[in-house]
Protein backbone atom coordinates (compact mmCIF):
# COMPACT_ATOMS: atom_id res chain seq x y z
CA UNK A 1 0.00 0.00 0.00
CA UNK A 2 1.15 3.52 -0.80
CA UNK A 3 2.91 5.33 2.06
CA UNK A 4 1.94 8.86 3.01
CA UNK A 5 3.75 11.50 5.01
CA UNK A 6 2.83 10.73 8.63
CA UNK A 7 0.11 12.77 10.26
CA UNK A 8 0.85 13.24 13.97
CA UNK A 9 -0.91 14.98 16.82
CA UNK A 10 0.36 18.56 17.08
CA UNK A 11 0.16 18.66 20.86
CA UNK A 12 2.60 15.82 21.54
CA UNK A 13 3.86 14.51 18.18
CA UNK A 14 2.29 11.13 18.88
CA UNK A 15 0.52 9.07 16.20
CA UNK A 16 -3.13 9.88 15.62
CA UNK A 17 -5.32 7.26 17.32
CA UNK A 18 -8.28 5.87 15.37
CA UNK A 19 -11.44 4.02 16.33
CA UNK A 20 -12.70 2.05 13.33
CA UNK A 21 -16.37 1.07 13.30
CA UNK A 22 -17.71 -1.24 10.61
CA UNK A 23 -19.68 -4.47 10.74
CA UNK A 24 -17.34 -5.95 8.16
CA UNK A 25 -14.07 -7.29 9.57
CA UNK A 26 -12.65 -7.06 6.07
CA UNK A 27 -13.52 -3.35 5.83
CA UNK A 28 -12.05 -2.69 9.28
CA UNK A 29 -8.80 -4.38 8.33
CA UNK A 30 -8.58 -2.39 5.11
CA UNK A 31 -9.19 0.89 6.93
CA UNK A 32 -6.67 -0.08 9.60
CA UNK A 33 -4.04 -0.69 6.94
CA UNK A 34 -4.80 2.71 5.44
CA UNK A 35 -4.54 4.65 8.69
CA UNK A 36 -1.31 2.84 9.52
CA UNK A 37 0.04 3.98 6.15
CA UNK A 38 -0.81 7.53 7.32
CA UNK A 39 1.31 6.99 10.45
CA UNK A 40 -1.67 6.43 12.74
CA UNK A 41 -2.43 3.72 15.27
CA UNK A 42 -5.55 1.75 16.04
CA UNK A 43 -7.16 2.71 19.36
CA UNK A 44 -10.02 0.27 18.97
CA UNK A 45 -12.52 -1.43 16.69
CA UNK A 46 -16.25 -1.98 16.82
CA UNK A 47 -18.70 -3.91 14.67
CA UNK A 48 -21.85 -1.94 15.51
CA UNK A 49 -22.96 1.42 16.81
CA UNK A 50 -23.59 0.36 20.39
CA UNK A 51 -20.11 -1.10 20.76
CA UNK A 52 -18.70 2.03 19.13
CA UNK A 53 -20.11 4.16 21.94
CA UNK A 54 -18.54 2.04 24.66
CA UNK A 55 -15.27 1.81 22.75
CA UNK A 56 -15.18 5.59 22.37
CA UNK A 57 -15.67 6.02 26.11
CA UNK A 58 -12.91 3.50 26.77
CA UNK A 59 -10.31 4.66 24.25
CA UNK A 60 -10.97 8.37 23.57
CA UNK A 61 -9.59 8.24 20.03
CA UNK A 62 -8.54 11.27 18.00
CA UNK A 63 -10.70 10.22 15.04
CA UNK A 64 -13.56 7.78 14.54
CA UNK A 65 -14.13 6.20 11.13
CA UNK A 66 -17.79 5.13 11.22
CA UNK A 67 -19.79 3.00 8.81
CA UNK A 68 -23.52 3.76 8.50
CA UNK A 69 -25.39 0.54 7.77
CA UNK A 70 -24.71 -1.75 10.73
CA UNK A 71 -26.71 -4.12 12.92
CA UNK A 72 -28.07 -3.14 16.36
CA UNK A 73 -27.41 0.58 15.98
CA UNK A 74 -26.60 2.39 12.77
CA UNK A 75 -23.65 4.70 12.43
CA UNK A 76 -25.50 8.02 12.27
CA UNK A 77 -27.28 7.39 15.58
CA UNK A 78 -24.04 6.21 17.18
CA UNK A 79 -22.26 9.34 15.93
CA UNK A 80 -24.97 11.53 17.40
CA UNK A 81 -24.76 9.84 20.78
CA UNK A 82 -20.97 10.06 20.88
CA UNK A 83 -21.00 13.74 19.95
CA UNK A 84 -23.69 14.49 22.56
CA UNK A 85 -21.43 12.99 25.22
CA UNK A 86 -18.16 14.22 23.71
CA UNK A 87 -18.66 17.40 21.66
CA UNK A 88 -15.00 17.37 20.72
CA UNK A 89 -15.33 13.97 18.97
CA UNK A 90 -14.14 13.92 15.37
CA UNK A 91 -16.23 11.43 13.45
CA UNK A 92 -15.82 10.70 9.76
CA UNK A 93 -18.60 8.64 8.21
CA UNK A 94 -17.33 5.98 5.80
CA UNK A 95 -20.11 4.34 3.84
CA UNK A 96 -21.01 3.04 0.41
CA UNK A 97 -24.43 4.67 0.79
CA UNK A 98 -23.47 8.23 -0.06
CA UNK A 99 -26.66 9.99 -1.08
CA UNK A 100 -27.24 13.52 -0.03
CA UNK A 101 -29.87 12.83 2.65
CA UNK A 102 -27.51 10.47 4.41
CA UNK A 103 -24.62 12.90 4.25
CA UNK A 104 -26.70 15.80 5.50
CA UNK A 105 -28.21 13.69 8.30
CA UNK A 106 -24.75 12.59 9.41
CA UNK A 107 -23.35 16.11 9.36
CA UNK A 108 -26.38 17.53 11.16
CA UNK A 109 -25.98 14.94 13.89
CA UNK A 110 -22.35 15.68 14.54
CA UNK A 111 -20.17 13.94 11.97
CA UNK A 112 -17.35 16.10 10.63
CA UNK A 113 -17.03 14.60 7.16
CA UNK A 114 -18.15 11.82 4.82
CA UNK A 115 -16.10 9.44 2.66
CA UNK A 116 -17.78 7.10 0.21
CA UNK A 117 -16.72 3.47 -0.24
CA UNK A 118 -14.79 2.08 -1.94
CA UNK A 119 -12.37 4.27 -0.03
CA UNK A 120 -9.47 5.78 -1.93
CA UNK A 121 -6.51 6.16 0.47
CA UNK A 122 -5.56 9.55 -0.94
CA UNK A 123 -9.10 10.83 -0.34
CA UNK A 124 -9.23 9.56 3.24
CA UNK A 125 -5.78 11.02 3.90
CA UNK A 126 -6.91 14.49 2.82
CA UNK A 127 -10.12 14.23 4.83
CA UNK A 128 -8.21 13.25 7.96
CA UNK A 129 -5.84 16.20 7.60
CA UNK A 130 -8.83 18.50 7.12
CA UNK A 131 -10.74 17.13 10.10
CA UNK A 132 -7.71 17.31 12.39
CA UNK A 133 -7.03 20.88 11.36
CA UNK A 134 -4.49 22.54 13.65
CA UNK A 135 -4.53 19.51 15.93
CA UNK A 136 -2.71 17.48 13.27
CA UNK A 137 0.73 18.00 11.79
CA UNK A 138 2.17 16.40 8.70
CA UNK A 139 5.70 15.17 9.18
CA UNK A 140 8.29 16.48 6.76
CA UNK A 141 9.30 14.12 3.95
CA UNK A 142 12.45 13.18 5.87
CA UNK A 143 10.40 12.23 8.87
CA UNK A 144 7.66 10.43 6.99
CA UNK A 145 6.84 7.07 8.48
CA UNK A 146 8.79 7.78 11.64
Amino acid at each position, binding site marked *: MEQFASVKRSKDGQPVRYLIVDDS*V*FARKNLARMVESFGGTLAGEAGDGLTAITEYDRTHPDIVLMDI*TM*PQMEGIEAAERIVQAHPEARIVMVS*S*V*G*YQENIVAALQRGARHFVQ*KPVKPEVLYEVIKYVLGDDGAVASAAGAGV
Partner: protein
Amino acid sequence: MKMELIQPFINSADAVLAQGLQCTTAIGSLSMEEEAYRRKGVAAMVWVTGDIEGRIIIDLDPETAVRVAGKMAGADLPESELLVKETACELANQIIGNAITALNDQGFHFRVHPPVMHESAEGIKSSEDTEALVMCFETPVGSVFMNIALRYNRRRNADAVAAGR
Protein backbone atom coordinates in the same frame (compact mmCIF):
# COMPACT_ATOMS: atom_id res chain seq x y z
CA MET B 1 -38.29 -5.35 -13.91
CA LYS B 2 -37.49 -1.90 -15.24
CA MET B 3 -34.10 -1.19 -16.75
CA GLU B 4 -33.97 2.09 -14.83
CA LEU B 5 -33.81 0.03 -11.64
CA ILE B 6 -31.14 -2.34 -12.92
CA GLN B 7 -28.75 0.00 -14.68
CA PRO B 8 -27.40 1.67 -11.50
CA PHE B 9 -26.46 -1.77 -10.14
CA ILE B 10 -24.63 -2.69 -13.34
CA ASN B 11 -22.78 0.63 -13.33
CA SER B 12 -21.95 0.30 -9.66
CA ALA B 13 -20.70 -3.29 -9.91
CA ASP B 14 -18.54 -2.34 -12.85
CA ALA B 15 -17.09 0.68 -11.01
CA VAL B 16 -16.52 -1.08 -7.68
CA LEU B 17 -14.89 -4.13 -9.27
CA ALA B 18 -12.78 -2.00 -11.61
CA GLN B 19 -11.53 0.17 -8.78
CA GLY B 20 -11.07 -2.61 -6.24
CA LEU B 21 -9.34 -4.96 -8.65
CA GLN B 22 -7.61 -2.30 -10.74
CA CYS B 23 -8.87 -3.88 -13.94
CA THR B 24 -11.58 -3.73 -16.54
CA THR B 25 -14.58 -6.04 -16.29
CA ALA B 26 -16.91 -7.55 -18.87
CA ILE B 27 -20.44 -8.86 -18.55
CA GLY B 28 -20.09 -12.51 -19.44
CA SER B 29 -23.69 -13.60 -19.31
CA LEU B 30 -27.06 -12.11 -18.56
CA SER B 31 -30.38 -13.84 -18.05
CA MET B 32 -33.79 -13.44 -16.50
CA GLU B 33 -34.78 -16.17 -14.06
CA GLU B 34 -38.13 -16.98 -12.56
CA GLU B 35 -36.93 -20.18 -10.96
CA ALA B 36 -35.43 -20.18 -7.47
CA TYR B 37 -31.89 -18.87 -7.40
CA ARG B 38 -29.28 -21.43 -6.48
CA ARG B 39 -26.08 -19.91 -5.25
CA LYS B 40 -22.93 -20.68 -7.18
CA GLY B 41 -20.48 -20.11 -4.36
CA VAL B 42 -20.56 -17.78 -1.38
CA ALA B 43 -23.54 -15.49 -1.65
CA ALA B 44 -24.23 -12.29 0.29
CA MET B 45 -27.77 -10.96 0.11
CA VAL B 46 -28.95 -7.42 0.82
CA TRP B 47 -32.60 -6.43 1.19
CA VAL B 48 -33.84 -2.98 0.35
CA THR B 49 -37.19 -1.54 1.46
CA GLY B 50 -38.94 1.69 0.59
CA ASP B 51 -39.99 3.12 -2.78
CA ILE B 52 -38.29 0.10 -4.33
CA GLU B 53 -38.31 -3.28 -2.63
CA GLY B 54 -36.46 -6.50 -3.16
CA ARG B 55 -33.09 -8.08 -2.78
CA ILE B 56 -29.72 -8.23 -4.47
CA ILE B 57 -27.30 -11.13 -4.20
CA ILE B 58 -23.57 -11.00 -4.85
CA ASP B 59 -22.18 -14.47 -5.41
CA LEU B 60 -18.67 -15.74 -6.08
CA ASP B 61 -16.71 -18.92 -5.51
CA PRO B 62 -14.34 -19.06 -2.51
CA GLU B 63 -11.15 -19.02 -4.58
CA THR B 64 -12.30 -15.90 -6.41
CA ALA B 65 -13.28 -14.30 -3.11
CA VAL B 66 -9.78 -14.80 -1.71
CA ARG B 67 -8.21 -13.29 -4.83
CA VAL B 68 -10.64 -10.35 -4.72
CA ALA B 69 -9.85 -9.78 -1.03
CA GLY B 70 -6.12 -9.82 -1.76
CA LYS B 71 -6.49 -7.29 -4.55
CA MET B 72 -8.67 -5.00 -2.46
CA ALA B 73 -6.33 -5.23 0.53
CA GLY B 74 -3.20 -4.83 -1.59
CA ALA B 75 -1.65 -7.99 -0.18
CA ASP B 76 -2.06 -11.76 -0.42
CA LEU B 77 -4.38 -12.97 2.33
CA PRO B 78 -4.64 -16.49 3.74
CA GLU B 79 -7.86 -18.26 2.76
CA SER B 80 -10.37 -18.69 5.52
CA GLU B 81 -14.12 -19.14 5.68
CA LEU B 82 -14.44 -15.78 7.42
CA LEU B 83 -12.41 -13.96 4.79
CA VAL B 84 -14.50 -15.47 2.01
CA LYS B 85 -17.78 -14.46 3.64
CA GLU B 86 -16.51 -11.00 4.54
CA THR B 87 -15.40 -10.41 0.97
CA ALA B 88 -18.80 -11.33 -0.43
CA CYS B 89 -20.52 -9.06 2.12
CA GLU B 90 -18.19 -6.14 1.55
CA LEU B 91 -18.54 -6.39 -2.21
CA ALA B 92 -22.32 -6.48 -1.78
CA ASN B 93 -22.19 -3.47 0.54
CA GLN B 94 -20.14 -1.39 -1.84
CA ILE B 95 -21.94 -2.33 -5.04
CA ILE B 96 -25.41 -1.93 -3.59
CA GLY B 97 -24.55 1.18 -1.60
CA ASN B 98 -23.25 2.97 -4.66
CA ALA B 99 -26.24 1.89 -6.75
CA ILE B 100 -28.67 3.02 -4.06
CA THR B 101 -26.90 6.36 -3.96
CA ALA B 102 -27.50 6.81 -7.69
CA LEU B 103 -31.16 5.78 -7.37
CA ASN B 104 -31.65 8.13 -4.45
CA ASP B 105 -30.34 10.96 -6.58
CA GLN B 106 -33.17 10.07 -9.03
CA GLY B 107 -35.73 10.57 -6.27
CA PHE B 108 -36.20 7.05 -4.90
CA HIS B 109 -36.03 6.64 -1.16
CA PHE B 110 -35.34 3.45 0.68
CA ARG B 111 -33.46 1.71 3.41
CA VAL B 112 -30.59 -0.70 2.86
CA HIS B 113 -30.33 -3.56 5.31
CA PRO B 114 -27.01 -5.10 6.39
CA PRO B 115 -25.90 -8.02 4.21
CA VAL B 116 -26.71 -11.55 5.27
CA MET B 117 -25.16 -14.73 3.97
CA HIS B 118 -27.38 -16.85 1.75
CA GLU B 119 -26.14 -20.25 2.85
CA SER B 120 -29.02 -22.53 2.07
CA ALA B 121 -28.51 -25.18 -0.58
CA GLU B 122 -32.06 -24.41 -1.67
CA GLY B 123 -32.69 -21.46 -3.89
CA ILE B 124 -34.51 -18.24 -3.15
CA LYS B 125 -37.73 -17.98 -5.08
CA SER B 126 -38.59 -14.69 -6.67
CA SER B 127 -42.19 -13.61 -6.25
CA GLU B 128 -44.60 -13.70 -9.16
CA ASP B 129 -43.86 -10.16 -10.23
CA THR B 130 -40.20 -9.92 -9.35
CA GLU B 131 -38.33 -12.13 -11.73
CA ALA B 132 -34.63 -11.95 -11.11
CA LEU B 133 -31.93 -10.68 -13.40
CA VAL B 134 -28.72 -12.70 -13.14
CA MET B 135 -25.52 -11.38 -14.61
CA CYS B 136 -21.93 -12.48 -14.49
CA PHE B 137 -19.04 -10.03 -14.36
CA GLU B 138 -15.87 -11.53 -15.75
CA THR B 139 -12.75 -10.21 -14.04
CA PRO B 140 -9.09 -11.28 -14.22
CA VAL B 141 -9.45 -12.97 -10.81
CA GLY B 142 -12.68 -14.85 -11.56
CA SER B 143 -16.41 -14.46 -12.06
CA VAL B 144 -18.66 -12.40 -9.83
CA PHE B 145 -22.40 -13.03 -10.14
CA MET B 146 -25.08 -10.50 -9.32
CA ASN B 147 -28.74 -11.46 -8.95
CA ILE B 148 -31.26 -8.64 -8.74
CA ALA B 149 -34.96 -8.96 -7.92
CA LEU B 150 -36.55 -5.55 -7.36
CA ARG B 151 -39.95 -3.99 -7.85
CA TYR B 152 -41.67 -0.71 -7.19
CA ASN B 153 -43.51 -0.58 -3.91
CA ARG B 154 -47.18 -0.94 -4.92
CA ARG B 155 -48.63 0.83 -1.92
CA ARG B 156 -46.35 3.81 -2.35
CA ASN B 157 -47.12 3.89 -6.05
CA ALA B 158 -50.85 3.88 -5.29
CA ASP B 159 -50.38 6.64 -2.73
CA ALA B 160 -48.48 8.70 -5.27
CA VAL B 161 -51.23 8.24 -7.89
CA ALA B 162 -53.91 9.13 -5.33
CA ALA B 163 -51.98 12.24 -4.42
CA GLY B 164 -51.84 13.22 -8.07
CA ARG B 165 -48.08 12.80 -8.29
